[in-house]
């Protein structure tokens, strides 16, 4: 597959996954705010921490409140990570690779883009129908995944897409857990309080993991949440699961079934996969959850750079 095309498909999928995660985070926080115990302040700043957009935000606004955060994360065209920007980037990438994806995939990305541009959405949505918008984005993206799975041949386009999707998802899950653990860390008397529980439940809901957690463990505790979202073998948004799936696609695009001559990206991903495979929750806690997640984010960044160097850049070919 053309390197430029692989690059575009990879990023199209990352952007789409990013948009979905943003929509989930905002949607859940919005609902959470409705359940806040009296006297507790709504917390919107952590959303900016999860997405690492806080520095951008501060350049634009002095104070943090719901309207500003939602507008900034959903519609702001100056914010390169806003849902709007992500969908626009994804569509732009899709336009350059239409011959490599199915017509239905293109039309779905295009319809998401047209949805964003509908006058009933856009800035100032808070006074209208905020929830509807986020639900439509999420379901539109889920449709995209379904369409992709049922229309695209399992060749390079599929695998580079999966690399983008799962690396982005692993990164966002790690940031989500980190924020609750690191920033929303409750004071001693709040542990186990309604607020604490509410936050853990919200976190699970934002990645569709609430009932999975209940079913698996019976009740919700921080350690269970961490185990589920970092190490679970079967849950499709756990970090382990994402890296495992990404690694499968990595091996397909590298074509190293004989197990020889690995490229850097494959090596890095293989070692990350193995590391996650042989870790357990006690190990993570012993290392420090924040430190552990931090390392995961660094690993993902390095892998992304290595994918660029190994597949997209052709730095070894003198043009």
């Amino acid at each position, binding site marked *: 597959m053309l390197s430029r095309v692989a690059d575009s498909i990879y990023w199209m999928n990352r952007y789409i996954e990013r948009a979905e995660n943003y929509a989930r985070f905002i949607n859940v926080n919005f609902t959470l705010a409705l359940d806040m115990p009296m006297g507790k302040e709504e917390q919107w700043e952590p959303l900016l921490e999860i997405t690492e957009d806080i520095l951008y935000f501060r350049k634009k606004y002095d104070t943090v409140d719901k309207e500003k955060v939602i507008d900034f994360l959903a519609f702001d065209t100056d914010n390169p990570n806003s849902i709007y920007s992500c969908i626009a980037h994804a569509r732009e990438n899709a336009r*350059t690779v239409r011959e490599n994806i199915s017509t239905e995939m293109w039309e779905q990305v295009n319809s998401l883009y047209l949805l964003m541009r509908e006058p009933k959405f856009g800035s100032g949505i808070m006074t209208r129908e905020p929830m509807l918008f986020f639900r439509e984005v999420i379901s539109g993206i889920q449709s995209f995944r379904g369409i992709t799975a049922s229309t695209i041949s399992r060749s390079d386009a599929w695998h580079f897409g999966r690399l983008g999707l799962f690396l982005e998802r692993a990164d966002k899950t790690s940031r989500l857990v980190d924020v609750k653990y690191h920033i929303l860390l409750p004071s001693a008397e709040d542990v186990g309080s309604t607020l604490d529980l509410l936050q853990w439940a919200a976190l699970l809901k934002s990645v569709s993991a609430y009932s999975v957690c209940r079913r698996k463990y019976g009740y919700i505790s921080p350690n269970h949440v961490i185990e589920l979202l970092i190490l679970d073998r079967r849950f499709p948004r756990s970090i382990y699961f994402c890296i495992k799936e990404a690694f499968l696609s990595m091996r397909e695009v590298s074509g190293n079934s004989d197990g020889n001559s690995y490229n850097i990206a494959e090596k890095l991903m293989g070692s990350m996969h193995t590391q996650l495979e042989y870790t357990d929750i006690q190990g993570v806690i012993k290392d420090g959850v924040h430190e552990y997640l931090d390392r995961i984010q660094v690993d993902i960044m390095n892998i992304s750079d290595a994918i660029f160097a190994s597949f997209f850049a052709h730095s070894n070919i003198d043009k």
Partner: protein
Amino acid sequence: MSTTLQANFQPYIADGLFDEAFDQAGRIRNTYAAFGDSFNLLAQAKIREMQYATVKAQLATGMTFNVYDEGVNKERILPIDIIPRIISAADWELIEKGLHQRITALNLFIDDIYHDQKIIADKVLPAEVIRSCPNFLEPCVGLNPPHGIWCHVTGTDIIRNNDGKYYVLEDNLRVPSGVSYLLENRELLKRNFPDLFETLNVRPVYDYTHHFMELLREMSPRPHPHVVLLTPGIYNSAYFEHSYLARDMGIELVEGRDLVVRDDCVYTLTTSGLKQVDVIYRRVDDIFLDPSAFRRDSLLGVPGLFEAYRKGNVALVNAPGTGIADDKVIYAYAPEIIKYYLDQDPILPNVPTYVCDRPRDMDHVLNNIEELVVKEANASGGYGMLIGPQATKKSCEDFRKRIKADPRNYIAQPVINLSTVPTLASGRIEPRHVDLRPFILYGRNLKVIPGGLTRVALRKGSLVVNSSQGGGSKDTWVLG
């Protein structure tokens, strides 16, 4: 079958112009009779709904093109009007024969110009015309493209005058665009009038890309060819078409930066290394193809590409150099060219053309500029033009000066009134001017795709059908 003006078309006035659907007495023509009957059964609201849904579908499928407007890059659609342009079998037979003849002759002409230039030796065409033609590419002299074919894809512009006759307006032998709209228009119209396609036996167009892919493969220097489509990129106004054709033919859409040349062979840069390319359908103009052979500042091209082509290691479609025949001065010689190479009279006439480089023609143009259309010999897309009857005194004077300063660069033609077709205007159906761009594929066989792209000037009275200037398009039906 009713022959009077039908309810949904009222009050439709052909207004002294040649209308494709109605004659001057308001009687529907035979070609439109069956369509008219069926269309007349539709409620007005239904017609508006069909039109709305069609444009909506264009947006949803991303049939857009980019235009620069005051420094901002905007995406637009080329709106389809749901009332088709219908051509009778007899008219089509004439057009098809005429195009077959013309393209065959022009290809022989191009080949001759880059070889022995017999047509000049025989004094049919002045040597000066070729010497002064900016589209003549010196590096192409002596080249022999596969099967002797230079203009593989042509999109000839044809118009119909008040006399009801068809005329060739432009040849477009370089990188003509519009075929994707032709194909997509048909898909969208099928949704609106499924029954009519069956009963009228409209000739199908869906096999265009099949024939085209066959043609591309025939040009390959090696068996099992690797064929790619070279595009200038996403900001090119025809990007939708490049993407559409690549998708439909199952070939890679590449940009200059995706290609490298090694040892005079062309390769794509892939995730698993270099892969050799055999045939390039290129939608990049000649002079931008290769900065080492033509324009040095081209960022779209691939250094070394022309040398690889010259050595026969890669085929280019269309071949570089075909632009000579797009020069409007050479266009004026088309009847002589057809006579010279085929010993036949042209089946499709040219629009009468005054070549300002001929003193007698120039005098006529200078004296009658207010009644003529003046064109630069090598401009296109509606640029560099003067429409005398609509122009101010000042711009007429300006063009007189420009013609006198550089007569070789100007031609003039009488104003041609393009024929009209009923078109949905706000609230009712009115006549709008159209032209016709059939597409011709020239591989081992020469094929004219039945119909073509009908472009329509959506503004009332306008004769400018260009997409950049308020034009739309129509599906074109050739009756079986």
